[in-house]
């Protein structure tokens, strides 16, 4: 199989959002025990920070979806 064949399917990436990317890098992959902490004064800064961002993006998307719902007239 040629390298070009390997890459053929990769050009058409669909709908990869920041949310997808954060979700993947934070939740997929191997963990080395005790290493997943970048902390300062006992607070897991990066992990905590990214989870807050992730939650915020999710909440924002939910609000956007709600706003896009058609309004009903009574």
């Amino acid at each position, binding site marked *: 199989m040629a*390298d070009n064949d390997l890459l053929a399917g*990769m050009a058409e990436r669909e709908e990869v959002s920041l949310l997808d990317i954060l979700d993947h*890098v934070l939740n*997929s*992959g191997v963990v*080395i*025990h005790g290493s997943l902490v970048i*902390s300062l004064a006992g607070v897991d800064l*990066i992990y905590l920070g990214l989870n807050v961002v992730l939650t915020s993006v999710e909440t924002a998307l939910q609000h956007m979806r709600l706003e896009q719902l058609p309004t009903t007239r009574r």
Partner: protein
Amino acid sequence: MALLAYCMMEAATMVEKPAAGVGGRKIDELADSGLRCFFSRFENREQLSGTPAVESAVAFHQVLQALFQQAVIVPFRFPTVVDGEEELRQHVEAHASRYAEALSRLRHMVQMEIHIGQKEEGTANLPASGHEYLQGRQALAAELKTAAKQFRQTTGPWVAEWRERQTKQGMRCYALLSREAVAGFQNAARTLRQSLPGARVSGPWPPAEFLEIKAS
């Protein structure tokens, strides 16, 4: 010295490394037990903590994608940081056989994902009782399963393995397929997605859901 680990691949695989990784750092690698492990060096953990978290995560993702476009990888979860090359080497040596088996089994494979979202409930439709609430939950779960089944059937000819997981946001489906099957899968999923507006298809991703490697 703190090392941020990106991923592993088979040592014999020839790949071109990205010019820079998280925080603009050079990407180094170590080879051990038939595996190549990619990482960036930082003075200490605080130096990495100092870089903006989202930018770091996106840069991490870009490194993984650049390597994954060339060969299958076993990614590390972000941010996996170890205290020096020796610690990383010890981990690779200790688990080399499992990683090698996974890389060999998934050599030409990728992972596609389908997220089937739940419908947003308006306040006018709040359940009147606990019984009604549970009935609603059951109906929703059945709806998600039906949608997942439709996707599975439609994309079936391209899929080697399929997994599903129900989450708070809906249903997640993971399809393992060969790299050559991606375009076919995408076309099939696209036709079905038009009738299921709550569904999103993404990928190809490294086949992390099919690694069968537990945290260690």
